[in-house]
């Protein structure tokens, strides 16, 4: 094994990590802001909103992310209306196209995870909130959402891990994140195995850190599931 080469590869891939993290973080955050209203639309009981949300989720979950990226990056540019619109500076930039595709995609999955979390809150607890005169908004903010987040966290954690890995698809539209740099190095050196192993290891480390953080968050958010500490009764 050519250790110096592996080390050299690692050094070459490190500059791609910030872009990988930026793609993952920004799309996850934007996706969450899109997912919450989508989940609420599903639960609204209003037929039209329910169907829009269902349709959205169906389309984005049932088509490959790669195809979505291609449609947004290559497809939209075919329309003169888009090329001349104010959106064009964003839509011709591969970085923003990747962000948009990843955001739209994760929102579809996340909305289902959040919907499950919201529905898990026992009806009796919501009734108790109504009985003390709590407004709908306060009930949502104080009673429903905190419990829904706790309930959704393990499922959402999965989605976050998938998103870190999904950013590698952005390399296909010229973005030089970890996978993009790896692919470029391979075309220059033809040493595919070694380079991809190092690239894989980089994702492994990123997701290792992420799973630790998720575990910590789960621990911190769930004191009510742990046995009370010895001193907690005072």
């Amino acid at each position, binding site marked *: 094994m050519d250790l110096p080469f592996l080390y050299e590869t690692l050094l070459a891939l490190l500059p791609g990590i910030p872009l990988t993290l930026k793609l993952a973080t920004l799309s996850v955050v934007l996706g969450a802001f899109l997912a919450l209203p989508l989940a609420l639309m599903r639960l609204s009981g209003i037929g039209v909103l329910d169907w829009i949300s269902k349709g959205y989720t169906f389309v984005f979950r049932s088509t490959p992310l790669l195809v979505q990226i291609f449609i947004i990056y290559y497809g939209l540019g075919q329309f003169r209306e888009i090329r001349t619109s104010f959106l064009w500076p964003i839509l011709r930039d591969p970085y923003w196209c990747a962000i948009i595709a990843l955001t739209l995609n994760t929102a579809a999955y996340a909305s289902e995870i959040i919907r499950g979390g919201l529905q898990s809150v*026992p009806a*009796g*607890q919501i*009734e*108790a*909130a*109504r*009985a*003390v*005169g*709590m*407004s*709908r908004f*306060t009930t949502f903010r*104080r*009673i429903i959402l*905190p*419990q829904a987040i*706790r309930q959704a966290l393990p499922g959402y954690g999965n989605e976050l891990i998938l998103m870190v890995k999904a950013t590698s698809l952005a390399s296909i539209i010229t973005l030089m994140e970890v996978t993009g740099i790896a692919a470029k190095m391979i075309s220059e050196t033809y040493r595919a195995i070694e380079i991809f192993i190092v690239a894989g290891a980089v994702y492994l480390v990123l997701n290792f850190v992420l799973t630790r953080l998720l575990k910590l968050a789960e621990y911190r958010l769930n*004191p*009510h*599931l742990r*046995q*009370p500490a010895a001193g*907690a*009764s*005072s």
Partner: protein
Amino acid sequence: MTPSTVPAVKLDGLRKSFGPLEVLKGINFEAREGQVVSILGSSGSGKSTMLRCINMLETPSGGTVTIYGETIGLVPAREGLKAVDRHQVDRIRQGIGMVFQSFNLWSHMSVLENVIEAPIHVQKRPRAEVIAEAEALLEKVGIADKRNHYPAHLSGGQQQRAAIARALAQKPRLMLFDEPTSALDPELVGEVLRVMRALAEEGRTMLVVTHEIGFAKDVSNKIVFLHKGIIEEEGTPDEVFSNGHSQRFRQFLAGTIA
């Protein structure tokens, strides 16, 4: 609490249907301030529904609900009626403490957090004052040492006493108890009834849906017996238990004691 001439609760011709099933068929009822009313009846008689109409957890299908002289505004909706003004309902609810059969404590909050939640986030009272009151209330119901525990770590009796403290923290003029001991193990019923008895002795206005005939007899000063959505017997415990002549009530008592 100053005694008031206005009834604490007044129901006029209260009706409630769930789909084709008519659960309440015209209830006329009055509770004065300081009264402890026990509402008895076999399952399906409509007693819980009657209680839940008082704080609008169920919307009546007909008739009126008047709390301390204020009638809850209802207008026709697609099915039955709906509240005219959600803010009016929220405001009236703030003056009514409710205790549920299954406690319904908020499971992500400690006991103390459960008790201070509504005073702080609904009634917007100062935090320090609310906490001091909450600790006194927990002392009163005998679970001050559990204030930092979460509901999942308490027995049923402790949870129900925490729920009573939560209801009291709103400083309600009226307390509603919906079968507060029905979900408890027999050996835990006593501790909850003791707390309720103490509240009754303070002169609080309480409406209690219960199967505890002993509690109804000893503690309440008015008994209402519901059967199939109408009030069959009504009066002081003495009147109802010694002279209650309807066969239904006799059967109900025989079934409860047996």
